[in-house]
């Protein structure tokens, strides 16, 4: 860098700075407005064109009185349903298929984007709802029978993605948007009615006396009532007579009686407390 020699002395520079400071301090105080600096107002209301897809006059209500709409159905999201029975394809045998759902008539096909119903499906509630309810679904005709505590959907070959039975009275204009409860919450609720437990009891030593079977405890989330137990896909070795002894709403004792002291049992314990 080249050397620079000022045209002013140090004293002259100090005097000029002091003069400039004095001039700045003598200026009057000034506050800029928000508009002068281009700021947005503290409250800003953009124009509303629709609410939940509804236009025009939109009525907002509190639904069942709790401030939100509660869906009384279990396993209502058919895009990600709880399916402990492992059903797939097209089902035409009447009875339970997805957890909590019973095929009443016709057929239902399980798809990744929902169920295609060509008939009637139902869900029986455990408890009678207090007050009014509103039955609805993404498609088809939904209804509720208070006498049998049964929610029903009837459809003719249409895709259904969700079902709902809301506490409270709603019209088409006031129906809340469907909100799934989440898979984990649905699974926990479904296990109150149905549970299937894989069981691998391999190379266990048991009392080699059929008069005194060895007992193995199995614990599970509490069910609605003492469930009906069925052993599925069962095979065993070691001449084991495997059965279920004592059972409560949340546990059972698995009995293995054998004529030899080694036993293996593999299978699934199906616990059914459905309505």
């Amino acid at each position, binding site marked *: 860098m080249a050397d620079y020699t000022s045209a002013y002395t140090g004293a002259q520079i100090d005097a000029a700075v002091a003069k400039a400071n004095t001039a700045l301090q003598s200026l009057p105080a000034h506050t800029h407005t928000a508009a002068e600096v281009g700021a947005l107002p503290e409250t800003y209301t953009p124009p509303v064109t629709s609410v939940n897809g509804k236009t025009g006059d939109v009525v907002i209500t509190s639904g069942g009185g709790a401030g939100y709409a509660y869906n009384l159905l279990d396993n209502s999201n058919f895009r990600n349903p709880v399916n402990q029975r492992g059903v797939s394809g097209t089902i035409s045998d009447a009875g339970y298929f997805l957890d909590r759902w019973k095929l009443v008539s016709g057929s239902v096909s399980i798809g990744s984007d929902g169920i295609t119903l060509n008939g009637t499906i139902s869900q029986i509630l455990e408890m009678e709802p207090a007050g009014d309810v509103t039955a609805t679904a993404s498609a088809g005709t939904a209804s509720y029978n208070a006498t049998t505590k049964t929610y029903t959907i009837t459809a003719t070959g249409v895709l259904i993605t969700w079902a709902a039975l809301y506490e409270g009275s709603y019209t088409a204009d006031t129906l809340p948007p469907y909100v799934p409860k989440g898979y984990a919450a649905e699974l926990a609720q479904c296990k109150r009615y149905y549970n299937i437990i894989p069981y691998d009891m391999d190379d266990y030593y048991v009392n080699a006396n059929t008069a005194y079977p060895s007992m193995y405890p199995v614990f599970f989330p509490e069910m609605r*009532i003492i469930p*009906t137990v*069925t052993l599925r896909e069962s095979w065993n070795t070691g001449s084991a007579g495997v059965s279920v002894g004592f059972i409560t709403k949340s546990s059972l004792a698995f009995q293995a009686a054998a004529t030899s002291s080694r036993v293996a049992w593999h299978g699934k314990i199906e616990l059914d407390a459905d309505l």
Partner: protein
Amino acid sequence: MDEYLVYIRVDDAGRVVDINSSAFLQDTDGWTQIDSGHGDKFHHAQGNYFPLPLFDERGIYRYKFVNDQVAERTVEEMDADYTPPEQKPTAEELLAAFFGGVKDA
């Protein structure tokens, strides 16, 4: 509301060894219908039809089927089915017997 039939299975001695409902039995061969009705007692008869479990705490069958009727077995009948486990000597008893033998020698 569906109606369910209740079935039992009985052994040669007339003891009720199993109970279930038409909701779960595909084949009722070897089973005897004893009742029918609505609700959990009939639908889930296996654990809900009888007031007490099918076995007592010793694993002895609690009910019998006599004259087309289910009844609780008497204490005497159930006791007769029970064979107490073989009593094996404890370690202390084995030691005592051993040292008793040594002392006597």
